[in-house]
């Protein structure tokens, strides 16, 4: 037991990979779904131990508050997605859209993706993190292409090639970072670790850091879906199986944005110490704003529900990137809050949309309408989740967007004008679709109605979004605020 407590980080990473290997060979489909759930649950429980574990976890892993928080979040979303998967995949299978080998592959890849994401979050070493993100990409590409329809393969290809290039750029940035750190820390693993970079930040050669930052920004910015690097994102969200869309939509930005936040903190420390780096906020804010504006304007003229929410994810990534770019303790805090709450809310949206799509036999706006009239629980949950994403009170994103926009007004009023315009436009688009999906006369059903258990997951997500925004427990708030202080 003490051993387990000593190294939950290692277990958190290893369990999903082990589960993936098991699921790859497990024959029974029902059983596989439950094993998937059990593994995700175990990972979540283990992740909950992370905050109490020592910082250096060995095997190039390190647990700091930021990593622990995000790992818990990722594990939680993975867990609920696995929960939703059970019914969803069974229904897909029943409808004949997935055959047993593919279901087996799906489960294995699900766990691989989860493991890779957790590894990327917990890795101290930039190289390991890069490998993990690459692995996550490959796993995600395979899941997106799982249904083998023409559109799915196209989406997967787009995803693969564009993210491949992005990841390549990130690697170049990583190499430059190692070079920069190596000139201070000497060659070795220290030069390639976040802790090393953070420690040596004030003394690193600033210009080199700038160059590295540009490449890492473009590399991980691609994963986060920042405009103009976002083209892969809508297609892949729209084509993957919906429980996986929930995971992909929620976790991909987390990993990428957390990496960008860490690097930004390194540069800021260098700037503060007069190390010659340029303030990194401008570039982040520029890409963030672009994402907000393009993401929101693209909410119009959408016909596909999942693609629509993918654009909303682009917008949200932009908002978070903007907040991180803005810097300062409050803005970073708000950005982290937005990151967490948006991941929860967006996962809930995708979970509901997935069930609604199965219920109505299509995932276009013309197929799904008036959910509340026919299926009140599903309809209200979806309405709540979309309202949460739109930043309407009483959901928590209202608080984080309030803070982000407010900080922007305080510090960069002219950019705040653009951000505000983008947020209004985004809210308008979401409201439009919220009403068309959930209110009005219902469209006809042609699939199984979701049962209570399937809706428990989005319900729990929504409750969390509500509580974390309005009544954030002081301990948790202080914890996040402390993280923001570290990375401001």
């Amino acid at each position: 037991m003490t051993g387990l407590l000593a190294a939950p980080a290692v277990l958190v990473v290893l369990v999903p990979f082990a589960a993936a290997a098991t699921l790859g060979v497990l024959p029974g489909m029902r059983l596989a779904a439950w094993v998937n759930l059990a593994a995700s649950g175990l990972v979540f429980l283990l992740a909950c131990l992370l905050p109490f574990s020592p910082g250096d976890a060995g095997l190039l892993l390190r647990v700091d508050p930021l990593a622990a928080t995000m790992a818990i979040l990722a594990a939680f979303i993975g867990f609920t997605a696995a929960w939703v998967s059970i019914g969803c995949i069974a229904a897909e299978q029943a409808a004949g859209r997935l055959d047993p080998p593919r279901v087996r592959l799906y489960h294995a890849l699900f766990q691989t993706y989860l493991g890779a994401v957790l590894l990327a979050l917990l890795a101290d070493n930039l190289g390991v993190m890069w490998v993990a993100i690459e692995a996550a990409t490959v796993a995600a590409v395979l899941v997106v292409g799982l249904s083998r329809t023409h559109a799915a393969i196209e989406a997967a290809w787009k995803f693969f090639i564009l993210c491949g290039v992005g990841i390549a750029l990130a690697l170049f940035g990583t190499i430059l970072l190692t070079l920069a750190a190596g000139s201070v820390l000497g060659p070795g693993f220290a030069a390639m670790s976040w802790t090393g970079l953070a420690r040596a930040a004030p003394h690193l050669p600033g210009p080199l850091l700038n160059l590295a930052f540009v490449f890492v920004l473009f590399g991980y910015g691609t994963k986060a879906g920042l405009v103009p690097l976002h083209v892969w994102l809508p297609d892949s969200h729209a084509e993957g199986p919906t429980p996986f869309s929930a995971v992909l939509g929620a976790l991909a930005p987390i990993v990428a944005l957390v990496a960008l936040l860490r690097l930004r903190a390194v540069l800021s420390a260098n700037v503060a110490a007069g190390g010659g780096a340029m303030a990194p906020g401008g570039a982040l804010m520029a890409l963030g704003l672009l994402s907000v504006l393009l993401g929101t304007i693209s909410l119009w003229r959408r016909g596909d529900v999942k693609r629509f929410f993918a654009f909303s994810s682009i917008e949200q990534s932009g908002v978070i990137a903007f907040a991180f770019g803005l810097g300062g303790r409050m803005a970073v805090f708000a950005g982290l809050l937005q990151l967490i709450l948006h991941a929860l809310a967006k996962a809930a949206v995708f979970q509901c949309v997935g069930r609604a799509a199965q219920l109505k036999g299509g995932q276009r706006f013309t197929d799904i309408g008036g959910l509340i009239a026919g299926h009140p629980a599903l309809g209200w949950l979806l309405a709540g989740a979309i309202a949460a994403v739109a930043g309407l009170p009483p959901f928590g994103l209202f608080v984080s967007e309030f803070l982000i926009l407010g900080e922007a007004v305080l510090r960069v009023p002219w950019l705040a004008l653009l951000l505000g315009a983008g947020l209004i436009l985004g809210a308008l688009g979401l409201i439009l679709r919220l009403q068309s999906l959930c209110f009005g006369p219902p469209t006809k059903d042609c699939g199984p109605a979701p049962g209570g258990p399937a809706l428990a997951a989005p319900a729990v997500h929504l409750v969390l979004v509500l509580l974390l925004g309005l009544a954030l427990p002081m301990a948790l708030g202080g914890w996040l605020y402390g993280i923001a202080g570290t990375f401001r």
Partner: protein
Amino acid sequence: MAGFALQLAHLLGGAMLVLSFVLLYQRRLSALITVYALQAWALGLAAAALGVAQGAPHLLLVGFVAVAAKGVAIPLMLRVIVRRLAIRRAIETALGVGPSMILGVALVALSILVVMPVTLQAVPLAREDLATALSVVMLGLVMMISRRSAISQVIGFMALENGLILAAIAVPGMPLIVELSVAFLVMLAFIVAGIFVFHIRARFDSIDVGVLDRVGGVLR
């Protein structure tokens, strides 16, 4: 010996850059594959030479992996694919050779301009290698955006990857090089396998704006 190996590695890096230009210039598919293989060989040898020069045995391993996988295995696979899928030998270009060469030169200039001033503290040869590596990366990108056919775009991507590995070995004391290069190889393998499995014959940019217009602005 060490000094000579270093110079050799440096020279081979330069050769990779030249080969990148040749890739950009080349119009025939089989020649493209050959030039790519040559570039991989140059990379492998450069890694080995650096390994000798710095006394770092893992670089030898990197060199071996590069030669074996990218100098031999992948070109072979590509040739098989070209034959099996009956892909046309000539390559459609989207940009034209002339403009893409000019673009390439400009990007190389930019790479040097960007890398040289910021790496003052680094070893001189490493600086130049880094600049070369970034140039190779940039040329790979140019190739990806100037060619229409899937195979040549993938070759562009792989050339880009060669540049990355060159950058990695240029940084003295870079840890985890082997792991990184292997990880990247896995991805390349997936891509090549993808072409094969999904029969992506001519081009993978079938999601064209033209398609969008044809569907009559259907909301996607």
